[in-house]
């Protein structure tokens, strides 16, 4: 490089060298700043203790047919509904092309009589009504979100209103016939 500088006799190569140094310094500076910023950004993500609270066990033995309960999981409610024969049929009989977010009922349950979904409206996060007996269940017998009027069916699928997706199904396993582990 220094060869060229001397032999060519004009200042062009020297300026190229400066440009290169400026660019390289800027690049290192930008990357360095990014690297230094990351710990601060990441510190705002869920911490280890928050992640550790990731599962709960629930006993199902005292939920009669036709009723539902709310349990807390990761700071949000999970709805567990002991579905009646009629509710199961309703959920299974809908044609998939009628659905906003098409998903069959089988794909959403492990055991037909137990529907387990995260009780958070997929619109803006309110808790839909319909779990406690006597609460409005909306036009499709499942849940009704009062915040902006979303209706969910007996499989927790969105049927009407602004919510874009079905109620989320959490990962869960049946430990016995009457206990389930969520998360």
């Amino acid at each position, binding site marked *: 490089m220094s060869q060229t500088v001397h032999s060519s006799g004009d200042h062009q190569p020297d300026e190229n060298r400066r440009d290169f140094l400026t660019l390289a310094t800027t690049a290192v500076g930008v990357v360095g700043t990014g690297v230094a910023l990351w710990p601060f950004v990441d510190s705002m993500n*869920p911490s280890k203790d928050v992640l550790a609270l990731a599962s709960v066990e629930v006993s199902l033995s005292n939920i009669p047919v036709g009723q539902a309960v709310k349990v807390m999981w990761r700071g949000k409610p999970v709805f567990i509904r002991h579905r009646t024969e009629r509710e199961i049929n309703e959920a299974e009989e809908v044609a998939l092309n009628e659905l906003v977010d098409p998903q069959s009922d089988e794909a959403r349950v492990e055991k037909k009589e137990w529907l387990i979904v995260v009780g958070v409206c997929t619109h803006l996060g309110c808790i839909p009504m319909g779990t406690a007996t006597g609460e409005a269940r909306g036009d499709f017998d499942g849940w009704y979100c009062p915040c*902006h009027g979303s209706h969910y069916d007996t499989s927790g699928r969105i049927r009407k209103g*602004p919510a874009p997706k079905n109620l989320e199904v959490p990962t869960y396993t049946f430990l016995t016939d009457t206990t389930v582990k969520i998360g």
Partner: protein
Amino acid sequence: MSAPVWNNKVVKWVDDRLPVFTMLHHSAYEYPTPKNLSYMWNFGSLAGFVLVTMILTGIFLVMNYTPHADMAFWSVERIMRDVNYGWLIRYIHMNGASMFFICVYIHIFRGLYYGSYKAPREVLWWIGILILLAMMATAFMGYVLPWGQMSFWGATVITNLFSAFPIIGDPLVTWLWGGFSVDNPTLNRFFSLHYLMPFVILGLVVLHVWALHSVRSNNPTGVEIKTPQDAIPFHPYYTIKDLFGMGVFLIFFMFFVFFAPDFFGEPDNYIPANPLVTPPHIVPEWYFLPFYAILRSIDFTVFGIPAKLLGVLAMFASIIVLFVIPWLDTSKVRSSKFRPVYKWFFLILFIDCFVLGYCGKKAPDDYFMGIEGLKVIVVGQLATLYYFAHFLVVMPIVGKLERPKPLPTSISESVLKEGANA
């Protein structure tokens, strides 16, 4: 204007090393202010006064407030019941937030009516909008701190807006929360930022005033200062007028603090936050209602963009559009006083914002003012349409077609003429 000569030795000694006195003298005595400013020009200094009030009351609240999900609600109740004058400090802070928005909204409409956003005041206008955005963030996070039902569910609904963005949406919301729902980590970071943001606003206010002092105040005629006859020094003429306005404003402010402290609030916020039960009707604070109405009015999909995302984009766009109005307004005349056509559109915009506010308050399926068959959501959609049309269509077109009334040759002339007519 020459630099002042300081007779006091101490003042001179300091001023030679750090010219604070020269600076103050320059901005109070030498700063030429149009002599025809109306009471509409009081709201800037009032907003500044409220900002200082918020910072002071906030600092004293923090001395007794506990930012923890289990204790926040009860620490605020303790402030109300047990801390000496705690109720007063909290009520000033709570109502102060509303007063701040009242002042700033009047201040903004003043700017819109008198064309204060036009050259050479674009940057001044921009900083103003940044202040508005920062205020919104501050008030939103402050409202979460007492950890009542509205705090919790307001925070949930608003942070969930960000989930509308494709791909990055969900991780972004988890990051904002520091967990899988609004919870203690969320409360802690909101507290930290709620303490920080007012000082950011203070910095922006300094830039705002700096910009003001280099482009000078606009005035009701929209005609710039041309000769020294058009201007008077800021002090004592406007310091006294601002002080008088502050007295009147304090009567208004303190009326709410002492006689109707919960007028602007929601009773549900006196119920401790419960993550398992959503209140039947979630409404934001009044100052967010027009934006909330715009958000909700989009319940349809366009070009495959889901309604949820469109609503969020429309809501942000309703403020972003204010940044470009210096170029959307094609009229050569600043003040709407001399714009016989635009004046009426301005009035429609003003009413439109109240209509939006009303729609934001009601449930989408309610009837508008009880009129059978007229759903709130539909009115909200029309009002949203007008809001954007006003800036994007009316401003450019009316500015071109309208024939303005003749402008006074100077501020002095207009003052003398109005005096003669009176």
